[in-house]
């Protein structure tokens, strides 16, 4: 139907309000209590308009458009109502805009500036309400509440959580939680819809979760932005909650070709950023990924893209997570890909660095087989030619992703005695079924997860007493708390905050001399400063010492590429090396990081190499249809206190008897239950952002 606003004829739909029709046609009418996703209530009267044939101005949000309606937005009567309404709101609203967290992003501020009004002719009143920062994630500054009711409608009608309502206080009526309850007690699901719709600074994100170096959306969904590969975590967790493991896996696979591997061994930085930390423990994101992949049927394969052959050839040196990921996406972009792997089997650190009790061969074989299905030629037990030779032999682009497979020793007295090992070789030999011999007592030097991998492997190889010594105290150690705890259960003796002075023994390791660390920190020049406790020197007698103090790349010196920090390959943001057409990705560039970081780098390498090879560099995939999640999340009894679910784990006695997987995947019920704890932080990004007048 046609209606006329300020002399301009516009189209309106049956049942549409005059306000919505105007805004849709690009005609701005001020409004505040009205929100595109919420039922109109007509309380604020900022959207007042005059309609031909009507005596008094009416709120356009509550007026249904009718054929031929003639509307004037800024007639004298409507304008007076609108301005008075805003003046009245300002008369009791704090005047210190600059001190408000919403300053510059505030709808109310934008509206009154547009209207150019001030409350001077009215009596002023401050309804002082103390700021409430006692709730997790959400800060209430209700002194700024203008009773528009948007948060209440969002909480009640849009979400069905029904926590917020109008409440009566000594200072008047405002939005709030009835009966003096906390958000958690009232059953809040911390979805943030109230924050999203608040047109003032009354309900805001707690300051500490909003980091300046992240965009708004990144702050709102920190798990997804923290993941190096930006897996759409809330989306797959929602599918798991619904019991749809296939779709969950497809979501993960849109970003990474190793779902189950990651589900088993990822360092899950996402979990540290999970907003549920503020309510106790984070969502078990990593293990949920494993549960999804574990129950997957491979339906995603039907949607996997494989573009037409480009007749371009790419070579990848090193079949670790970075190399295989790059190879996978390059092959899907139609390039002919050959992967060179020095070892007998592909997988890199996943195969030779991570012990089988955390990541068994069969699992890795299965996921790598899926990758190779994309059409990749894999040459194992093959020393790759140099990048230059590869280019000369017809490869158009080369990726170096050889990782960091050489263990390092510290310059310590006795470090060359028989019985001294380095982590990389020790773990690799164990994984290959040809372990280095261990005596009764073993000490691992280092405080990361690799140190635990070595120690727990030594236990499984029959050592009776295994120690770990590291400079860091337990809080500073880079190994995960889970790893430390599981190690403790398996009898590993931890000497945290200890310096290793020397390895004793004459023709064989006899022990390690340790001394307690008083302080360990990095000075302003980033040099390590170690202050020792006098008189705390003592020797722990051991038969073997394993260095787990970092690894570095091998063989990069002969590749003809510019290096940095010793053996690392220098690469720019596009992962280009000093040689044209030669790229580098993963640990060989960054130093030993994580599998997920290597995969993310592999994706970047594939994008850049595809562009170099004449493609568009777009490796994104849609392995499932986009579905708009149900915004009505409803109430869940005791939601704020739901405890993190733990999968079943074999007892320590059983674990140390061999290299069997120590932890079972979640059962479907456990996974659905754990997924149900997710706050679904992403849902609020689906709420329409009202446009301000500057946008018209």
């Amino acid at each position, binding site marked *: 139907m046609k209606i006329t606003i300020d002399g301009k004829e516009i189209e309106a739909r049956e049942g549409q309000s005059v306000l919505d029709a105007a805004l849709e046609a690009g005609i701005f009418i001020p409004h505040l209590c009205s929100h595109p996703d919420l039922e109109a209530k007509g309380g604020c009267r900022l959207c007042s308009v005059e309609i031909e044939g009507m005596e008094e101005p009416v709120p356009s949000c509550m007026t249904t458009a009718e054929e031929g309606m003639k509307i004037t937005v800024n007639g004298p009567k409507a304008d007076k*109502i609108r301005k008075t309404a805003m003046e009245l709101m300002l008369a009791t609203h704090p005047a210190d805009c600059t001190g408000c967290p919403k300053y510059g992003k505030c709808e109310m501020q934008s509206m009154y500036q547009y209207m150019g009004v001030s409350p001077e002719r009215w009596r002023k009143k401050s309804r002082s309400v103390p700021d409430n920062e006692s709730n997790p994630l959400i800060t209430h500054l209700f002194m700024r509440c203008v009773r528009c009711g948007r948060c209440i409608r969002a909480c009640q009608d849009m979400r069905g959580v029904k926590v917020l309502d109008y409440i009566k206080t000594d200072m008047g009526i405002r939005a709030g939680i009835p009966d003096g309850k906390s958000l958690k007690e009232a059953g809040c699901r911390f979805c943030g819809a109230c924050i999203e719709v608040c047109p003032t600074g009354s309900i805001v994100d707690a300051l500490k979760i909003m980091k300046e170096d992240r965009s708004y959306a990144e702050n709102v969904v920190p798990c997804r932005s923290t993941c190096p590969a930006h897996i759409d975590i809330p989306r797959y967790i929602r599918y798991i909650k619904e019991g749809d493991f296939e779709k969950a896996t497809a979501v993960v696979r849109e970003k990474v070709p190793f779902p189950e591997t990651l589900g088993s061994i990822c360092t899950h930085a996402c979990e540290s950023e999970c907003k549920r930390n503020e309510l106790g423990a984070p969502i078990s994101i990593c293990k949920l990924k494993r549960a999804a992949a574990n129950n997957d049927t491979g339906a995603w394969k039907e949607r996997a893209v494989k573009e037409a052959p480009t007749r371009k050839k790419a070579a990848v040196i090193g079949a670790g997570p970075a190399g295989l990921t790059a190879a996978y996406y390059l092959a899907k972009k139609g390039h002919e890909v050959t992967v060179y792997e020095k070892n007998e089997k592909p997988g890199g650190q996943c195969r030779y660095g991570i012990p089988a009790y955390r990541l068994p061969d069969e699992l890795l074989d299965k996921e790598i087989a899926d990758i190779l299905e994309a059409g990749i030629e894999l040459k194992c037990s093959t020393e790759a030619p140099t990048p230059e030779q590869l280019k000369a032999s017809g490869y158009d682009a080369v990726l170096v992703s050889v990782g960091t497979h050489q263990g390092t020793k510290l310059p310590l007295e006795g470090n060359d005695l028989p019985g001294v090992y380095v982590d990389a070789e020790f773990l690799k030999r164990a994984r290959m079924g040809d372990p280095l011999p261990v005596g009764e007592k073993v000490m691992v030097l280092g405080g990361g997860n690799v140190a635990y991998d070595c120690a727990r492997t030594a236990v499984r190889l029959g050592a009776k007493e295994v120690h770990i010594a590291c400079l860091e105290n337990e809080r500073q150690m880079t190994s995960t708390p889970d790893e430390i705890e599981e190690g403790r259960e398996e009898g590993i003796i931890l000497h945290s905050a200890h310096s290793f002075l020397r390895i004793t023994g004459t023709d064989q390791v006899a022990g390690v001399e340790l001394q307690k660390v008083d302080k360990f920190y990095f000075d302003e020049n980033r040099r390590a400063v170690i202050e020792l406790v006098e008189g705390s020197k003592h020797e722990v007698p051991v038969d073997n010492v394993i260095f787990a103090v970092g690894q570095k790349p091998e063989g990069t010196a002969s590749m003809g590429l510019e290096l940095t920090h010793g053996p690392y390959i220098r690469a720019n943001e596009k992962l280009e090396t000093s040689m044209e057409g030669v790229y580098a990705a993963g640990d060989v560039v960054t130093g030993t990081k994580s599998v997920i970081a290597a995969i993310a780098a592999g994706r970047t390498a594939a994008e850049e190499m595809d562009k170099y090879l004449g493609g568009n560099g777009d490796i994104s995939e849609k392995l499932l249809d986009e579905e708009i999640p149900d915004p009505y999340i409803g109430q869940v009894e005791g939601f704020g206190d739901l405890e993190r679910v733990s999968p079943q784990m074999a007892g320590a006695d059983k674990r140390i008897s061999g290299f069997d997987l120590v932890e079972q995947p979640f059962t479907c019920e456990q996974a659905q239950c754990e997924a149900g704890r997710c706050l679904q932080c992403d849902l609020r990004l689906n709420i329409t952002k009202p446009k301000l007048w500057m946008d018209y």
Partner: protein
Amino acid sequence: MNTIDIVNNLKENECIVDVLFKAVSSHKCKDCGKCVFGYEGITQLEMILKDITEKRGRSTDVELLQDLCGMMKTQSLCEDGVEVAEGVLAALDTYKKDFEDHASRRGCRAGVCERFLTYHILADKCGGCGECIDACEDGAILGKKRFIHVIDQNECMQCGACVAACDCGAIIRAGAVKPKGPKRPIPCKRR
């Protein structure tokens, strides 16, 4: 009782502004908050009426009240806002002079609004004892022994301390009608 009935049933000894202020202060609109004209409107009515009863009214207040109530009448979300606005408008219509007297600080006709009350010393009762002079913290009472004391209305803060101090019962509170008396102290007639 709704506001308009309260206005219509005003008794001789009641002040319209005071009665209206009390009606507005306990009105339903204060407990709702769902519309700007109802809630912020009643908040303004309450504040303006309170100011008027407390001798803090402004000359523009009567006009402001009329303007506000006119909009509350058409723009409130429910009948409650309309009802209170109509009540105030009716009061302004019927008792306009009372409002103007308050707003221009002339006085409260009914002698109800405390800030408009004045204290006076009755010449025929004052014994010139000086007790009230000692009791007045504002130094608002003129006179000396055996002279009729006089309250300087410009200095008096209407605290009432003098009433309690006077053994002669010579000090009274007055509303609209003020007692006659000397402008400055004169010798006492009373023996």
